[in-house]
């Protein structure tokens, strides 16, 4: 409780620190999340190790130390300085399914998410879709078009993923900064319309 960083400083100094905005890039292993983050980021993608608290699952807890365990996950992220008062941080979620339980902590405070899909392995993005639907995190689907993949129309992908009609689906090339930035623009517009419709 030694934290008094804000309380003994003037309001001007408090407001001088920018606002951080968090967006997530999710999807299956190898779908291009890190590539996507790298092509929109103004810095080389960075990696951090975060300790995540997770409720232990059933019989795993043999230690008797309580019902929480911690695990360490590596997270890749990028940064875009939007203006002097706003910085966007883009976090790639770990692709391995066994880490799904830590997404709660990762998605806390996230504005929204891009779920990257690969039409050769559409089922790989199901866990991400399920998770964001359950959490109520706004998301869009971006189909990363690999050269070797067959081109599907967005509505075909919508049918295959059983997505609601109001969730945007776009095609992109995760390697192309402009294409990847356009995906984020689509997500932001979706967030704006979701915010507008939630206010009565």
């Amino acid at each position, binding site marked *: *409780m*030694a*934290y008094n*960083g*804000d309380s003994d*400083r003037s309001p001007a*100094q*408090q407001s*001088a*620190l*920018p*606002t*951080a*905005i*968090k967006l997530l890039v999710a999807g299956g292993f190898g779908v291009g999340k890190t590539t996507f983050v790298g092509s*929109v980021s103004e810095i080389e993608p*960075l*990696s*951090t*190790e*975060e*300790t995540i608290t997770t409720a232990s699952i059933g019989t795993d807890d043999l230690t008797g130390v309580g019902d929480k365990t911690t695990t*360490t996950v590596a*997270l890749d*992220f990028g*940064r*875009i*300085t*939007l*203006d002097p*008062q*706003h*910085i*966007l*941080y883009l976090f790639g979620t770990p692709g391995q399914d066994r880490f799904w339980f830590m997404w709660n902590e990762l998605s*806390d*405070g*996230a*504005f*929204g998410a891009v779920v990257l899909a690969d039409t050769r392995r559409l089922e790989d993005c199901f866990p991400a879709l399920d998770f964001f639907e359950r959490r109520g995190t*706004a998301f869009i689907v971006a189909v990363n078009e690999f050269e070797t993949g067959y081109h599907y129309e967005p509505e075909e992908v919508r049918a295959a993923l059983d997505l609601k009609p109001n969730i945007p689906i776009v095609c992109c090339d995760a390697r192309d*900064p*402009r294409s990847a*930035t*356009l995906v*984020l*623009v689509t997500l*932001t*517009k979706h*967030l*704006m319309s*979701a*915010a507008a419709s*939630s*206010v009565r």
Partner: protein
Amino acid sequence: MADFEHRPLLDEDAGPLVRPYTVSNGRTAPTAKLDLLSLVRSTGQLRPSQLEAEHAEALILCREPISVAEVSAHLRLPAMVIKVLLSDLVDCGAVTAHSPDPAVDPTDKTVLEALLNGLQRRL
């Protein structure tokens, strides 16, 4: 050789030569409430030369507003260790930090517009 300094002292079998939690004196509980996206910036009240090595390196990174995640990545130390280091710096008045609460409202129109404008400028 110059590059060597920026690489972690790692060995595939042995792991890090300096255990990460050595620099935090084994502490895993930061005194300040910080999360990965908490932004910090130096106040100018202390100079890096007045601090021990890791604290000084962290302080140098804080000249411009920077997130806990970035400090962790640049110093190649786990976020939990960085939170301890940075909360030390908050306690001694060397840096100022945004507490993660209250969280930014994801439906805040002003913030969403800043996000949209900032992204569109990059197209």
